[in-house]
């Protein structure tokens, strides 16, 4: 059967009639709802305050996102260049999974972090250097 034949021979029966009792009920409900004062939405005041052009504000926000994104990317590149790459910080789900495994002895806990004592500064005050010379 061709589509055209189907459409031309397609019979469109009438839909059910709307129940007559609905008229009074719906109109009464609408009238009652209209009589209840609608509170002013909170966002009206800032809409009136700002320039009523959402597209312009969206463009400004997009420009800021691009600016901040480029600054962030540039900052990351300067940090990584010429420096030893550090291990990536684990995210929250990974930390949670690791703690679960530590608790149930599924894996060995990580070795304690070795904190090297700070190296003594080679720059001593002049008074101390003078004493060393005298002792020597």
């Amino acid at each position, binding site marked *: *059967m061709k*589509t055209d034949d*189907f*459409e031309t*021979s*397609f*019979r*469109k*029966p*009438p*839909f*059910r*009639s*709307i129940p007559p009792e*609905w*008229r009074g*009920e*719906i*109109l009464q*409900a*609408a*009238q009652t*709802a*209209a*009589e209840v004062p*609608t509170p002013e939405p909170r966002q009206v005041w800032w809409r009136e305050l700002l320039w009523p052009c959402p597209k312009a504000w969206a463009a400004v926000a997009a420009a800021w996102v691009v600016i901040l994104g480029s600054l962030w990317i540039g900052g990351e590149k300067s940090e990584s260049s010429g420096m030893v790459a550090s291990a990536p910080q684990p995210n929250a789900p990974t930390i949670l999974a690791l703690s679960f495994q530590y608790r149930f002895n599924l894996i060995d806990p990580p070795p304690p972090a070795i904190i090297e004592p700070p190296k003594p500064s080679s720059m001593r005050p002049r008074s101390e250097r003078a004493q060393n010379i005298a002792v020597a």
Partner: protein
Amino acid sequence: MALPTTLERLYDAHAQAVFAFLLNLLRNESDARDVLQELFVKIARQPDCLRNAKDERGFLLRMAHNLAIDALRRRETRDRNHEAYGQESVVFAASPTPDEQTYREQLAAALGEIPAEQRAVVHLKLWEGLTFEAIAETLNISTNTAASRFRYGMDKLRDRLRPLYEEIK
């Protein structure tokens, strides 16, 4: 607040058409009633919304479509079977002849099997007689999308109703 006479005039002029559209879209009389009431409540609260409407019927159908989509999304989370089977409520008026009654039942079932977005376009094209441009404006879609959805919907209806049409011939 909308004048009572305005609401009554709108109801008398357009409620049947809007109800038919909602019934075909939602496939459930109770949901259709809720959306119809919600529609008139909105109009009663914001009577100015119709001031710039070029076509009252089209404007109301557009509001009804948006509200129906919200209702369908809410219903999807509750029970997906309503949309899938589409026989929740009787859609067409009863016919005195058995053959015609059988046809109407088959057509209602077939309409329930096509997606809601295609069913909306088919309804507006066949039962409301709108052009694709008017349908696109009503449903907030492009004209090409409206034409495509109508084509896909009619293809599915044809395939579904083919045995019935062959039998009638």
